[in-house]
Structures are given as C-alpha cells and as structure tokens.
C-alpha cells in the first residue's frame, strides 16, 4: 500500500468527529465534569463520618446525594443499588451495635441472653446512616459517570493512557467474565456436572467452573496484549483524544471549596466543636 494510492488518500467527504463520540449525558448533573462528581462523592462520604450526630449526615445526604439524584433522574436506581451495596454490612453493623453496645444501661428489649439497649440503638442508627451515606455517594457517582468519561478526563490531566486503559478495561472485564463463567458452566453441565443437587456436589463443581474462567482469561491476555501492541498501545507518552468532558473554572472553584470545607470540618471536629 504505497503512498498515493486510494487507501492512503482522504475520505470521500470531509467528516469530523461524529456526534455519537463523547455524547453528553442526559442531565445537567451527568454533564458535570467527572472530577467534580468524584470530589463531591469523596467529600460527602468523608464528611458524613466526620459530622457528629444523626441530623448532620441526614441533611448532608439529602443535599449531596438525594437532591442531585432526583435532578439527574436516577433516584430509583440509586436507592436500589446503594441499598444492595450497603445492606449486608449495614445490617450486621446495626445489629451488633443494637445488642452489644458496651456500657449501655437503658434496656429496650430482651431476647434470651442478649439485650437491645437505647444507647445501642442510637449508635446503631448513627452507623447505619453513615454507611448508607457512603454507599449513596459512591453509587451516585457510578450511575452518572461512564468509565470512559472519567478515564479520558484523567488522561487529559496527565494520567498515562496505559493506566487509564487498565482502569477502563478492569471495569469492562466483570460482565465479560460473568458471561464466560456462564458458558463454562453450560459446558461442564453437559458433561454431567451436577449443579442442581446437594450442597456438597455444588461445592465440588466450583473448580471445573472457576478453573477455566481463570485459565481462559489468562490465555486471552496474551492475545489481547498482542492485538493492542499491534496498534501502538505501548508507545510512550500521551495520545490524541477525540473529545474530553468539559470543565469550567466555576467547577474547579467548587471542587476547591468542597475540599477546603472538608478540611475545616475535620479541624473543627478535632478541636472539639459539637455539630
């Protein structure tokens, strides 16, 4: 394919970057810069722990998680996903504190040898609210930010494209692995592996399923690496970006304000200021 022949020429008409590349999100919140949303999520999570009492975190979650989620139209999904994420640890933390809070005296309920106390309940509620706040903040970020948005933004700010790629690929890997595990399970069942029998039988079925998932993923890595290298992936330095999520000085100021506010909050708490 020498210079000058059809394959190296220009395209038939002048077309720019197509509009489906880097399509802006459906709501104003979605369209915020990923770093802004990430900062908000982090600050909310930490502040929820730092602020004392029960009212503080609840107000924070309402302003920083529920409000934006409503505006972004993801409230339903947020509640479902955040609860799913937090439930196991939230339930155990709640119960442990309710029944086993040390030095508590006000008894609410007795069930055999264990006792639920009022102090325990108070503390349990405080823990619960904070767990849900953290879960909610993280979930909000996850629901309103595409992985590519974040990695492209980081790349624009100087993160190595190869690091960004790994971050992106790791996220995408999970559904691919799940699909692969499903196919492997089918193949092993076709060879008589019993997945519908006793618990013991099912435990024995783990190796024939997990084994190929891992082996297959490893075998694929080499091929995928070669395909990437064949497209210049290992070239050091930056690469050209087709688009990047917009940012603004207002947002940058806001991010700094959030961070400073968090520092101030923590300092106040250390100094003993009640909230």
């Amino acid at each position, binding site marked *: 394919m020498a210079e000058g022949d059809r394959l190296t020429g220009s395209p038939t008409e002048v077309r720019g970057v197509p509009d489906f590349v880097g399509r802006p999100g459906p709501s104003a919140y979605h369209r915020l810069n990923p770093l802004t949303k990430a900062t908000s999520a982090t600050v909310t999570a930490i502040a929820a722990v730092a602020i004392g009492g029960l009212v503080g975190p609840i107000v924070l979650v309402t302003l920083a998680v529920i409000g934006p989620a409503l505006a972004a139209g993801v409230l339903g999904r947020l509640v479902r996903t955040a609860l799913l994420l937090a439930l196991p640890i939230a339930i155990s933390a709640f119960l442990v504190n309710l029944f086993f809070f040390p030095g508590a005296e006000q008894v609410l309920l007795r069930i055999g040898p264990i006792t639920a106390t009022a102090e325990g309940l108070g503390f349990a509620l405080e823990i619960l609210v904070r767990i849900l706040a953290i879960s909610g903040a993280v979930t909000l970020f996850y629901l309103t930010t595409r992985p590519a948005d974040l990695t492209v933004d980081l790349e624009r700010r100087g993160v190595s494209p190869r690091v960004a790629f790994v971050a992106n690929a790791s996220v995408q890997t999970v559904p691919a692995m799940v699909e692969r595990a499903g196919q492997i399970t089918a193949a092993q*069942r076709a060879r*008589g592996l019993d997945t519908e029998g006793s618990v013991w039988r099912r435990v024995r079925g783990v190796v024939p399923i997990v*084994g190929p998932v891992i*082996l297959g993923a490893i075998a694929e890595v080499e091929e995928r690496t070669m395909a990437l290298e064949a497209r210049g992936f290992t070239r050091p330095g930056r690469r050209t970006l087709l688009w990047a999520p917009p940012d603004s000085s207002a947002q940058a100021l806001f991010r700094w304000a959030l961070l400073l506010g968090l520092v101030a909050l923590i300092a106040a708490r250390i100094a003993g200021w009640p909230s």
Partner: protein
Amino acid sequence: MAELRVEGLVHVYDGGVRALDGVDLAIAAGERVALIGQNGSGKTTLVRHLNGLLRPTQGRVTVDGADASSLTVAQLASRVGLVFQDPDRQIFAGTVRAEVEFGPRNLGRSGSALRAAVSEALEAAGLAGDEGTNPYDLGQSRRKLLALASVLAMRTPVLVLDEPTTGQDARGTERVRAIVEAVAGEGRTVVAISHDMRFVAETFDRVVVMRAGRLILDGTPNSVFAADVWDALRSTYLEPPLAAVLGDRLGVGSTPTDASLIERLRAG
C-alpha cells in the same frame, strides 16, 4: 421410535429474541445428521435443548421416549453428550487424562470400565501418547480434539458436535470424520453443526438447513444440495459443494460429493 424428537419448539431468549420459531424434528437412533445454516439461525439454540441446557418456551423435547423437561441436565448428560465449540471454555484439568475422565466419572463410571472408555476416546482423538500432558501445552486444534474425547468417553447414545472441524487442518478433520463414522457404526446417533459443506456432504446421511429459527430443508445430501434448492441455500449464505455445482453444470444430476460425481461420470 425416534431417539430425539422436537415438536413445535419455540425458544425466546430473555431479551425477546425469538431464536426458534416452531421447529419439528425427529431423529432416529443411529442417524448421522448435519445441522447447517448461518450464525443466528438457531442451530446452537436447538442443540442446547437436546440436553436440557435450554428449556422450551413452547413445544416439547423428547429424548429416548422421555420428556426432557422431566429430567435434569445431569440426567440428560448420560443420554446426550454435547461437545462445545470452544475447548478453552471447558478444559480445567492438569492433564489430558484427568480432563477426559471428568465426564464419565460424573456419570458414575469407575475402575476398568472408566479406564477403557478413556483410553478408547484418547486413541480416537489421536491423544493416546499425551495422557500426562497439560492441555494448555497442546495446540488449539488438539485441544479441540481433547474436548471431543472428553465427551466421547461418556459413551452416550447420542453425540452432538458443535462445529467440530472449525480451526482443524486436514488431519484433524479426518479424525473427526473417523470418529463420526465409528460412533454411527455402533448404532449411536450423531448430530453435528458445521460450516464445512464438503465435510457435511461426505460424512452425514441427513442434512437439516436452518434459517431464522426455522427448518427450511431436511433431507439427504443429494436432495439438500440439488440445484433446485440452491436458492434456499443461498438465502442463508450457504454454497453447495463444488461437486454439486459441477454435477449440475455437466447435467449428471445431484452429486453432492466428489465420489458421487465421479461415479455418475463413469456411468454416463
């Protein structure tokens, strides 16, 4: 009595895709059936109903007289052995022997019966000298033969192969053909999905053509590769084997295989 029977089979996947749109098929014991058609025509969906991996949305699947819906996949696996296309989505053992033993062990075989089944299968797949080898030290094509051996060793009355010759060279294809012939020779049933028209015409006595979830042709290679149905074949992006094309061009009738063409020319 049909060994495998499928009646009015409809299968709709979760996303709403209607992969099978009313399929009726009866396969007798000992038949050698090839299932052809482009990707997405429903071939894989159909064969997965034969061992219960998929259950009908509508219709019935009968295996050896019993309704498949009353049997678990593990139970059906003793009657219908299905070899998947990608060996790497199945192989997990550290040695070739252990991999081949897995299937028959699950079916309850042990001792000398197990050893005999495994040795026979390894021999047929050309892996007899590699019993202790790690499967991933074999090349891709031999791993495919290993996957085939691992199901062969289960000695099921029905053997279903999903694209057994894809990625195989001439010798590998020959081995697969020999295995099909040996299995059918014992009176067992073989069903194979394949894209290799020559392999299909030469190895199977019945060809079923699928398109968009339905059967559009069902008959001997002679009838399915005859010129009067080429349009139907081409509608699903299949081409008849060269021998069939030449047979038509030379006016000697339907000759799906090289051998049949030569015979007609010799006679005519």
